């Protein structure tokens, strides 16, 4: 029984760690545009988002009854496979964060689970038609629907504002952004907070520590809410920079249009049974709000990187999950090795990120997130002047735009003369 207890404790801690990465990965979804347009100061923004995420976690009553929503056969899933899937999802979340890529935490978790189940239970454990209908199709639809809606909304905003006085109007939109961003944060808490609670509860039930069919215990709700809240508060500034600055130089009417669209899309999809990824909805809205004013406002190179990240998320997490499961399923010793791999991988990624740190102080100062490996700095954008991977120092930073325009004035509507 001590082995079971050990495993349950490990899975719970890993699940909470995943929840933390989920929070800091997704705080950009709610607050990147508010931070970029100056509607909220960075620390205020993440504090509001964190509180609302915790509140949302407590509000959600409909806790996930399945780990994956039918993507894998839950009857065949063991706590060790869940552990391997969680480790894969954490490492993928951290990797995409390092590169400043907003990618879906849910997709990372599903990918990790798929990989782990393929190794642990074989091909029959994965429901591939559900993968298509619940992951691939929504992944294509989310950015298109959000982008179209935000584009149209932005187009109409600027039509209506033609005769408005820019400065007071921008003030109104910044105030409205506080509301729209908060709605996204609250909705996020109710949906993503309950995912981790569901995982922990199912593990407790599987191991016999909780009666089948009972809801999550209070300490599970509290710790999951706290983990996602702390993650959100820590900011995930690298992703915040890409979403708020890298894709489009947003002005407050665009930020409001993007956030309102995202909130509408999240609520509509949650209530009509066609779940869309929050991350993909929010990224699509930001791109749409740029394109709705002027197609050339969008940095399509950055948008392309985002799409590559989304395409990679599921298979990459699946590979991580498969490797982790192959090691962890060999026994307690294997689990310990995977734990050590998780810790050292996390430490390495954090150490690399420190070299080109993005914090709440400098989040708006640049558009690009640079990653410096060893003596080589490389901007990950695919640029025509792409540097060879072995380029020597000095660090090469390739900008998304040939010549960056002057810094975004948060008080302006950004109307061209």
């Amino acid at each position, binding site marked *: 029984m001590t082995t079971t207890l050990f495993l349950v404790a490990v899975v719970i801690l890993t699940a909470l760690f995943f929840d933390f990465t989920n929070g800091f990965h997704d705080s950009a979804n709610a607050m990147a545009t508010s931070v970029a347009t100056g509607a909220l100061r960075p620390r205020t923004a993440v504090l509001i988002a964190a509180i609302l995420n915790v509140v949302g976690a407590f509000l959600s009553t409909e806790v996930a009854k399945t780990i994956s929503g039918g993507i894998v056969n839950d009857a065949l899933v063991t706590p060790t496979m869940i552990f391997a899937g969680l480790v894969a999802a954490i490492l993928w979340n951290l990797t995409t964060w390092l590169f400043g890529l907003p990618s879906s935490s849910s997709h990372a978790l599903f990918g990790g689970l798929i990989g782990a189940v393929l190794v642990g239970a074989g091909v029959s454990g994965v429901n591939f038609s559900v993968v298509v209908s619940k992951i691939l199709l929504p992944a294509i639809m989310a950015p298109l629907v959000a982008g179209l809606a935000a584009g149209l909304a932005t187009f109409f905003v600027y039509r209506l504002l033609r005769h*408005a006085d820019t400065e007071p109007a921008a003030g109104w939109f910044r105030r409205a952004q506080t509301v729209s961003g908060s709605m996204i944060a*609250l*909705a996020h808490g109710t949906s993503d907070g309950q995912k981790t609670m569901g995982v922990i509860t199912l593990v407790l039930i599987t191991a016999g520590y909780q009666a089948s069919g009972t809801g999550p215990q209070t300490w599970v709700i509290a710790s999951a809410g706290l983990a996602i809240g702390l993650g959100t508060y820590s900011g995930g500034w690298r992703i915040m920079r890409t979403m708020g600055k890298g894709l489009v130089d947003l002005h407050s009417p665009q930020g409001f*249009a993007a956030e309102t669209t995202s909130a509408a899309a999240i609520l509509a*999809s949650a209530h009509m049974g066609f779940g869309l990824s929050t991350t993909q909805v929010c990224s699509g809205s930001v791109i749409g709000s740029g394109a709705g004013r002027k197609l050339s406002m969008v940095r399509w190179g950055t948008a392309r990187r985002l799409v590559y990240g989304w395409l990679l998320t599921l298979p990459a997490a699946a590979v991580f999950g498969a490797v982790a499961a192959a090691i962890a399923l060999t026994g307690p010793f294997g689990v310990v090795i995977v734990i050590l791999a998780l810790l050292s991988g996390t430490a390495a990624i954090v150490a690399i990120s420190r070299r080109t740190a993005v914090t709440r102080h400098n989040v708006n100062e640049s558009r690009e997130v640079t990653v410096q490996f060893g003596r080589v700095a490389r901007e990950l954008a695919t640029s025509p002047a792409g540097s060879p991977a072995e380029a020597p120092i000095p660090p090469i930073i390739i900008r998304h735009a040939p010549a960056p325009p002057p810094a975004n004035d948060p008080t302006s509507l950004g109307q061209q003369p």
Partner: protein
Amino acid sequence: MNINWGALGLVAVATITAAIAIVGLFSLGVAALTSEQRSRGGPAATLPTVAGYACLTVAGLVAVYGLYLIIPQLH
């Protein structure tokens, strides 16, 4: 393969309609309240002021409805 195309279409239509309606309404209100004429110190006409605040109020009510949708305890 069981793809719920109806739900997908509904989500798309609802998102686009809601986004345009809310953002449009709010912008209309802001435009009415911040016209250039008003900033130049001209007399604040009553009709645009009332209409502007009415637009903002309706947009706010939609936000409250959104809150209602988010919080499961309310329904």
